[in-house]
């Protein structure tokens, strides 16, 4: 159906030409799911977007190649001709349903507009179709929710809407660009199931783009692995998973978190005791009980995993412990000190002993401060170094988190996500804290990078003798690092156990549900079986 041959795309910038896609060929069969795998920057998105003329040009230039779609070369079409194909024959689903839906339009308007534009459908029938389709993708009560705005839907629901939007003109080919990356694991597995179902029912071709092999492990028919703009390996699912040829493919497979940390630490006395912690947010009617009566201990030197879906209050607990949000009730006792009762001055003293690593390395670094300034700031603030000695420490810190020293003068935007997260880790460790809250530190990163960062955190944790609260929605990641795990649901603790126990004998249905949705479970099992 779609045959891409020798596609090359370059980005011309002031510093030079960057070949984003280099002589790539692949094909998509109707009725099959073809997956393109590669880390960010591997050119997988650019290659797919270029098919529909959606890359910015300039700077993007398609140098050569063909993309035959039902015999027509997409790359040679005019903008007007492409518009006819976009959204009708070929539709796209993008990564982040939060930003890809227009927040100012009702989903009904957004759903029907391409139908009305492409098929000149009447308002009423377009709406009827939209409602049916919403029903099909699993939106409840579509007849009334069709007039809602995107923000009134959860992330998973939004992605369903996106899928419905893509399907509305009954395309022959659906390009899904990382459709589940921004979602929680439980939601991710639902969306994957939905895509697989749709593909079967409608018998369409799907081009699925992802950085994570595990995600497509259960659904892809054909897998294409890309690295640095080139296709390094192509094969069927079983070929790739069971008989990977290329080194890079093997690396990707290895990055799928599989190991489970064995609880090695003897029980020490708790560093932090959390007692009946409640953090409520003021809302108009009833308060939002983000954290509602949570109690647990964190022992010195251990890594405690905190797991839950988004909205379960796990981040709020982390922020409450560090007093970044105001606690409604309860106590947080840090090394004998009741943090919730501290005044600003005492709190400031304590700040150097506990630090926070944020989820989004893009947002958590001041875009107008260089790495050097970012890392020097806490050192100078807490009087750990003075102006004359600070550079030595900063450079040493950069060494520790694996950043080249020559990067010191660069700004955050000049780094990749993984490097940024290293900066953030460096900043958190600069004050040599005893306790660190890591809030989803790897969920915004590619799998290969995830593995590196997790390794780094493990190493540094050991080296600095850290106690850590590791927050994540992804059990697979947590169990790699955590000694014990606390499972959270709707602001309440549902289960706590050592990692090994939790995985082998989950006590509650909720935990079991979480375990079910770990991507590539089937594969994992087989892999573990192999091992």
């Amino acid at each position, binding site marked *: 159906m779609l045959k891409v041959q020798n596609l090359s795309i370059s980005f011309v910038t002031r510093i030079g030409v960057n070949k984003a896609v280099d002589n790539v060929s692949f094909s998509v069969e109707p009725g099959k799911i073809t997956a393109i795998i590669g880390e960010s920057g591997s050119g997988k998105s650019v290659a797919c977007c270029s098919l529909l003329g959606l890359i910015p040009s300039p700077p993007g230039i398609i140098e050569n190649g063909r993309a035959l779609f039902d015999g027509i070369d997409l790359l040679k079409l005019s903008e007007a001709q492409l518009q006819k194909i976009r959204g009708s024959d070929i539709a796209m689903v993008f990564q982040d349903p939060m*930003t890809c839906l*227009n927040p100012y339009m009702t989903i009904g308007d957004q759903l029907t507009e391409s139908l009305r534009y492409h098929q000149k459908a009447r308002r009423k029938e377009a709406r009827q179709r939209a409602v049916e389709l919403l029903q099909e993708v699993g939106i409840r009560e579509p007849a009334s929710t069709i007039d809602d*705005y995107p923000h009134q839907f959860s992330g998973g629901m939004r992605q369903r809407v*996106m899928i419905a939007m893509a399907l509305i003109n009954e395309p022959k080919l659906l390009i899904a660009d990382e459709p589940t990356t921004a979602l929680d694991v439980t939601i991710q597995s639902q969306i994957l199931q939905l895509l697989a179902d749709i593909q079967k029912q409608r018998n369409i071709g799907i081009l699925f783009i992802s950085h994570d092999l595990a995600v497509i492990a259960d659904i892809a028919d054909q897998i294409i692995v890309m690295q640095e703009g080139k296709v390094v390996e192509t094969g069927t699912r079983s070929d790739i998973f069971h008989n990977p040829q290329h080194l890079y493919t093997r690396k990707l497979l290895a990055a799928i978190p599989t190991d489970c940390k064995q609880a090695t630490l003897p029980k020490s006395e708790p560093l932090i005791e959390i007692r009946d912690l409640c953090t409520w947010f003021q809302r108009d009617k009833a308060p939002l009980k983000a954290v509602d009566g949570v109690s647990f201990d964190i022992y010195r030197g251990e890594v405690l995993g905190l797991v839950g879906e988004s909205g379960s209050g796990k981040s709020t607990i982390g922020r409450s412990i560090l007093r970044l949000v105001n606690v409604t009730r309860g106590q947080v006792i840090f090394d004998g000190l009741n943090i919730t009762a501290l005044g600003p001055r005492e709190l400031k003293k304590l700040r150097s002993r506990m630090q926070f690593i944020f989820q989004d390395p893009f947002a958590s670094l001041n875009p107008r401060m260089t790495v050097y300034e970012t890392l020097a700031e806490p050192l100078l603030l807490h009087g750990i170094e003075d102006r004359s000695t600070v550079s030595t420490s900063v450079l040493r810190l950069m060494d520790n988190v694996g950043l080249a020293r020559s990067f010191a003068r660069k700004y955050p935007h000049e780094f990749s996500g993984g490097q940024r997260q290293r900066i953030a880790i460096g900043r958190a460790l600069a004050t040599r804290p005893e306790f660190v809250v890591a809030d989803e530190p790897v969920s915004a990163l590619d799998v290969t990078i995830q593995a590196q960062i997790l390794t780094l955190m493990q190493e540094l944790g050991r080296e600095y003798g850290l106690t850590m609260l590791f927050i994540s929605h992804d059990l697979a990641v947590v169990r790699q690092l955590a000694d014990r795990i606390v499972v959270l649901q709707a602001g309440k603790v549902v289960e706590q156990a050592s990692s090994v126990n939790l995985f082998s004998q989950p006590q509650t249905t909720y935990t079991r549900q979480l375990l079910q949705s770990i991507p590539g479970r089937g594969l994992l099992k087989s892999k573990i079986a192999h091992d």
Partner: protein
Amino acid sequence: MWRFIGFRMLQAIPVLLVVITVTFFLIRLAPGGPFDSEKAVIPEVQAALEAQYRLNLTLFQQYASYLGDLSHGNLGPSFKYPGRSVNELIAAGFPVTAELAFYALLVALVIGGIAGVVASLKPNSVQDYIPMSVAMIGICMPSLLLGPILILIFGIYLDWLPVSGWNDSPGDKILPAVTLGSAYAAYIARLSRAGMLEVMSQDYIRTARAKGLPEWQVISRHALRGGMIPVIAFLGPAFAGLLSGSFVVETIFQIPGLGRFYVQAAFNRDYTMILGSTIFLATLIVFFNLLSDIVAAWMNPRLRDKLRAP
């Protein structure tokens, strides 16, 4: 939403009270009184005049009696226009000024909006620089200058439009509206360009394109609404600014608006008129700031829910 509005309204009350009090005493500090004229006034006459306007009371008594009248909605008699009450002068002038300001805002919105949107479509190109430069000229051209230039060109040399008047002959609102609105066009152009640039880089614009919508629909249906929010938020303060800044245009075009009364009241030391129009305009400023906040929030569905919640 009502709670939000009510809260803001409550905040407005102390603001207005402070404005009234400060203005009341400030204007008394200014040298010269309402009855000073080039020809010396005989002391007995001066005393009689002061008695008629209660200026013979102590300042505090005057303040108290003013507040008393105000609570009945009575802004007192004008000093400059004996026989007219301040309420009457405002009632006569305000509708005209409001209409003028409304048209001026439309002009600013059309010129600035078009320039900003057009410029944003191809940033840092000729298509950006030229519309922005045109919109920018309004800043360099105070009404004092632009008004007469427009009159000379369109009123006298071309003889297309009336040189003055308001509602006297068809077309006599065009030149004043353009003159008054052009200064704001630059701000609106700036805001809409920045807003559109921001929105055009959003993911949902890519989604819209991926749906196969033609570019003009992408812009008009998807980009404009978000891109114009900063402009909408600016409209309230801008309208308030237009209302209180229409003096020059009203004078040049012989428009019977409130701006003339307001500025001249200060020069005439027409105490009641200064106070009355200050209170009136301050109320309007508070109101329009609130209104544009609400509208801007209303245009953003996410904030709309916050407003809607009781």
